[in-house]
């Protein structure tokens, strides 16, 4: 009968990376997309390919056949026997498929729950499918709905609000201290990769100035150029502290590079404005006693890790609420899908009745010869109302909201056979071209 929504794919949970990388369609997805669309029974399709998952969302008439061919197509390059592919692939159908897509869009199925990238990747995949015209009514509705579900999850839960990486945790802490980071000044001590990453995140928040202090000035200058900042040597470190709000230290020095007694007098010169010190070096660069000074906040790598862990736990809690939203929206979508199937049938019944009525009316009129327009109008109204009254009950019978899914399908089938719709009409649920 009706077409089915299906998801077939592999992800980081089901499939080892060696297999996944053989499936990934890097670069242009248009060719595989068109190839999938050409598979027998495939009505509509969309291909999502990221580093953690390859998934095909499709609407199929003949589920088994399309699924088999799709699997063969996906694993063609991996060189795996078909029996093997079953182990890695998951297939969801109908309500499960819709729920799965909503979960993916809401980042509930991601490796890091709540990470925002997946939504962008899904939007790109949908854009490609639109460009290649492989999406129809159902996929259009399903994917746009998935985007709004993801938005709802983002606004109604705090799933994406807390930082789950060290450098984002540093940004989050800085915001709790300074509020707005615009106009603040950052100093990088040493030129480690992590410090660079943290500085990058801070610069994205509108940091005004970056100063780089390093043992070798040349290295400092190179890094400073990246951030449009200035470079100083390590000897100038304490003097520079007066004009700095955030300091990120990651030198390879064996001992401490900044002591409590060096910073204390600086605070007076800074008029006690807050100083946020981030020590991501191992062994540590900054004197742990610095945290005892008023308005100085010192975080080392373990502290930041602790923030990340706390946030991860918080996200898991929020994920429960997000799951509820995904389930709720799945039910709403399925209701829409049902009306999608009923509406074309009602239209078809009406059209058929109307065609019979106008043909019979035209024949009768020609036999009656010339009659006054008023009488002609009366006959037209009479035939219309007979048709409407006869069709009223069958249509109500179809629309009955109380019926179960199976019952609905049976009613639809019975009505279509009763009115002989499938003999001259395309089958119900066939979506018009997008």
């Amino acid at each position, binding site marked *: 009968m009706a077409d089915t929504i299906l998801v077939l794919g592999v992800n980081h949970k089901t499939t080892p990376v060696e297999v996944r990388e053989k499936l990934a369609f890097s670069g242009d997805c248009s060719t595989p997309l068109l190839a999938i669309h050409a598979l027998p029974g495939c009505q509509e399709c969309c291909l999502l390919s990221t580093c953690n998952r390859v998934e095909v969302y499709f609407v199929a008439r003949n589920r088994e056949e399309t699924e088999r061919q799709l699997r063969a197509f996906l694993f063609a390059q991996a060189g795996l026997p078909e029996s093997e592919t079953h182990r890695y692939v998951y297939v969801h159908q109908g309500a499960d498929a819709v729920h799965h897509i909503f979960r993916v869009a809401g980042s509930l199925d991601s490796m890091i729950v709540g990470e925002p990238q997946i939504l962008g990747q899904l939007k790109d995949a949908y854009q490609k499918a639109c460009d290649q015209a492989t999406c129809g009514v159902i996929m259009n509705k399903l994917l746009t709905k998935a985007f709004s579900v993801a938005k709802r999850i983002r606004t109604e839960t*705090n799933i994406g609000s*807390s930082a789950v990486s060290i450098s984002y945790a540093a940004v989050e*802490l800085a*915001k*709790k*201290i*300074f*509020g*707005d980071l615009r106009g603040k000044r950052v100093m990088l001590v040493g030129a480690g990769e992590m410090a660079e990453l943290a500085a990058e995140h801070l610069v994205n928040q509108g940091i005004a100035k970056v100063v780089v202090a390093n043992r070798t000035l040349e290295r400092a200058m190179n890094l400073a150029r990246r951030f449009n900042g200035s470079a100083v040597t390590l000897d100038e470190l304490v003097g520079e502290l007066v004009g700095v709000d955030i300091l990120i230290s990651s030198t390879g020095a064996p001992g401490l590079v900044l002591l409590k007694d060096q910073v204390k007098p600086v605070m*007076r010169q*800074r*008029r*006690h*404005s*807050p100083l946020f010190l981030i020590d991501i070096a191992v062994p540590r660069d900054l004197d742990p006693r610095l*945290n005892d000074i*008023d*308005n100085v*906040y010192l*975080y080392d790598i373990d*502290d930041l890790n*602790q*923030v990340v862990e*706390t946030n991860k736990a*918080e996200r898991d809690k929020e994920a429960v609420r997000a799951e509820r939203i995904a389930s709720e929206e799945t039910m709403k979508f399925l209701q829409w899908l049902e009306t999608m199937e009923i509406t074309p049938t009602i239209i078809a019944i009406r059209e058929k009745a109307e065609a019979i009525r106008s043909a019979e009316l035209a024949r009768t009129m020609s036999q009656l010869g010339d009659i006054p327009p008023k009488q002609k109008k009366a006959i037209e109204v009479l035939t219309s109302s007979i048709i409407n009254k006869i069709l009223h009950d069958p249509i109500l019978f179809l629309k009955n909201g109380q019926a179960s899914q199976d019952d609905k399908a049976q009613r639809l089938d019975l009505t279509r056979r009763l009115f002989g719709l499938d003999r001259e009409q395309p089958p119900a649920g066939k979506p018009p071209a997008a």
Partner: protein
Amino acid sequence: MSYLLFQASLFLYVLGTAAYIVAFVNQSKTVRRSARLLIITAAVVHTGTVVLRYVEAGHTPLVNNHEAVSFFALSMAWAFLSFYWRYKVKNLGTFVTPVLTGLMLVSAFSSRQIPELPPALRSTWLPIHASIAILANGFLALAFCGAVMYLLQERAIKKKSFGVFFSRLPSLEALDTLNHHCLTVGFPLLTLGIITGSIWAEQAWGSYWHWDPKETWSLITWFLYAALLHQRFTVGWRGRRAAIMAIVGFSAVLFTFWGVTYLLQGVHTYAG
């Protein structure tokens, strides 16, 4: 009639406080919005109460404990609402409304009888001096709430304990700014309250200053806040020290408001 309105406003304040606490726990924006609406309605009804009481009494209703504390709460409510439009300090309401409701309860349990106005208070200075002085208290109370929030947040950041408060309280910067602004409004009002009081004293009793306990304590309070503001402007005092000082200052305000009245005798003791 005015008492009926008073009870209605008290009820709304209690509801608003409960809503703010719920919003704090489950971080729901909808609940927070309803809480704010409740407090705005409460403040409007409460203002009506004071106006009606003025009509019923025939003099400014700032004479006995019930009236003065009720006006204290009203000042705090409007101080809070006026700050809401200018500074978005997340969850400030959760800290302000319990204090506010506490004041309302104290007022509710005080004698509600309309007092006979003592001759000393029959002056146009009564509404001016008393309302300014109590309005100052409203802003200083707000500074106190901001300071408590600051200390909680600063402790969370220093001790690296990311529990209930860390995520729910705003940044240290926002709280310090709130504190600063409350003080820069509250302190001039406090000064003006003392000046108008001393002018009135000169007219009523013939001299500007009596070293009456209430006068003495308001001067002590004034010096505490003056010192705090001085340090803020000159040395750049901020953060924890400023917050502690704002709390100490507010304790002095409360002592001047109640302690002096009940513990020490003086020319201000009519307000019982």
